[in-house]
């Protein structure tokens, strides 16, 4: 994939940094054989590249490198309070891929990570072992959420972008099939739906599409598929019986005519997809830890970085009055076309 049209920037993944320990994993071979034109640099630990402080993530977005590493730390994390937990007691997320090739101005990853390079953890089997262990723990304590576990696997990346070089989908689908007490959520903005057609729909695998008005996509979601393409992908999978959620998140203040823009957007949704088949819809305005916002201001040039947000308990977001107006408007308009019981507000 070529991100920049400037002919002096390298191709995406022109360089692959490989931890020496990662060399022993078959996935490493699979990935490097698919990217056989890339230059390989051996490293001891992924943080030597990923967590260097004096990097420029803005420029790295033009030519991101790939890092292959072995996760030796935590595999499964408790879900953030900034995300919706769908009223699940055991709400977790995991990240075997970190960072994204999409370039959304509001993405918290840009504030969270020092680098825009993409990090793959190649010891996927360790994630499944840890999950099985966690499922057993939860099973022994049925008072906690009836032994069920909700796991998002793509908060720290749009993983469907990488299925072509990191074939994880089959393994996650097989794991979900074998473990009905887990519900797996894949969040995406891509239009990659065809891979799912190789499998039967699963009750416990949810694909959540992040969607935004066309104006927002054009101005703030660089390198992402158009709204039409995302809606087409959603329609295709709904038709095949897959469980789909929609995330209208973040809702952005895009100037004084924001109401018209979001009204038109909701109208487009109701025309293009069968909303009755949508499992749930989440709504949330832009919000970000204030420390991440500081990095936005240092490197990025989007107006999103410089809006006069209010900060409460370390989280910056629109002033309360504007925030309420935005949520109230979008949710009330949405309720006209979709079952209010399945709308979740973050």
């Amino acid at each position, binding site marked *: 994939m070529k991100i920049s049209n400037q002919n002096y920037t*390298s191709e995406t993944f022109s360089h692959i940094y490989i931890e020496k320990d990662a060399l022993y994993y078959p996935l490493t071979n699979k990935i490097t054989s698919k990217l056989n034109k890339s230059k390989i640099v051996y*490293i001891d630990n992924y943080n*030597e590249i990923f967590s260097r402080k004096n*990097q420029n993530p803005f420029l790295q977005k*033009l030519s991101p490198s790939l890092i292959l590493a072995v996760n030796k730390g935590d595999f499964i994390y408790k879900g953030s309070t900034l995300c919706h937990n769908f009223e699940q007691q055991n709400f977790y997320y995991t990240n075997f891929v970190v960072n994204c090739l999409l370039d959304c101005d509001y993405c918290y990853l840009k504030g969270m990570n020092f680098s825009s390079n993409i990090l793959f953890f190649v010891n996927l089997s360790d994630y499944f072992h840890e999950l099985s262990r966690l499922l057993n723990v939860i099973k022994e304590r049925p008072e906690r959420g009836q032994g069920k576990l909700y796991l998002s696997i793509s908060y720290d990346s749009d993983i469907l972008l990488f299925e072509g070089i990191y074939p994880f989908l089959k393994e996650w689908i097989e794991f979900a099939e074998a473990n009905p007490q887990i519900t797996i959520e894949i969040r995406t903005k891509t239009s990659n739906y065809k891979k799912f057609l190789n499998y039967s729909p699963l009750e416990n695998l949810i694909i959540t599409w992040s969607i935004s008005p066309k104006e927002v996509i054009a101005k703030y979601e660089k390198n992402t598929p158009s709204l039409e393409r995302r809606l087409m992908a959603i329609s295709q999978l709904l038709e095949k019986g897959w469980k789909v959620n929609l995330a209208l998140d973040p809702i952005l203040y895009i100037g004084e005519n924001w109401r018209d823009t979001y009204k038109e957007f909701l109208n487009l949704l109701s025309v293009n997809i069968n909303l009755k088949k949508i499992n749930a819809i989440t709504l949330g305005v832009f919000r970000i830890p204030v420390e991440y916002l500081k990095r936005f*201001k240092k490197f990025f040039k989007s107006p999103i970085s410089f809006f006069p947000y209010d900060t409460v308990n370390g989280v910056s977001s629109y002033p309360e009055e504007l925030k309420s107006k935005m949520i109230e408007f979008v949710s009330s308009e949405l309720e006209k076309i979709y079952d209010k019981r399945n709308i979740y507000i973050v």
Partner: protein
Amino acid sequence: MLYIISAMGIEARAIIKYLDLKKTTDRPFETYQNEEVHLVISGVGKINVAGATSYLLKDTLRGLNHSDYVINLGICGSLNNKFNVGDLVLVNKVVDYERKRKYYTDILVKHNLKEGSIQSIDILNRNYEFEEDLVDMESSAFFEIASKFLFVHQIYVVKIVSDKVSKNQPLERLTKKYIDELIYDKLEEIFSFAKLVSSLLKLFQPILQQQDEEIIEKVSKSLKLTFSQTKQLENGYAYFKSNKRINPLFLEEYFNYIPKSKKERDAIFEDLKSKLYQ
């Protein structure tokens, strides 16, 4: 601005001629420059290059330095068969052999140079393990110090292989003429690469440029803004510029406006802010 550091005068001779650099000082380091390039001859070894790098980049932490980049340019030995004498190599991994520290540049430009790794050693003998592709005596110290001033995509090590190092062979003695010719032959390639880096760096300029900062300072002084208000003005200015893609020229109206009271200042400031966030 391009900064070049070479260890020996003979490594720099062809570059100075090629770029038509003029000598500016002898001490503490021999320095040459023109409007776009500063070159310093550090002397051999890590301590010398650390001092010279610091000396050369001492002003870059101040002001706008996003277009600056620095190259350690010189000859090196080859430790394996990946590289031959005369090869020009863009180094993608620098290892300090004694301290076991590793440094990586960010190679974001599309280029045709060969790439390899280098280990920097303290003493010129053969009692070290051959861990990387190349060997020299400066690049790790150069990289470590340069990293204190610049981002990693602004720091490059470019080496020309002058000799093959072997555990069983004595070190070759290289003549000045030989080194001069090695460097001379690669100048076109080296500066084509430098031009690419320069083009890339021009892509990133911070939202607030020097002239923007001057405008903010003038308004702040004239209206007697508090520290917090000045910070808010900076943010509002950046919002306006990023949103409308033009500078808020209307701020010039406030250059000579002196409020009669704090209350009046605060009211004017709120009005100004609302215009920036429109």
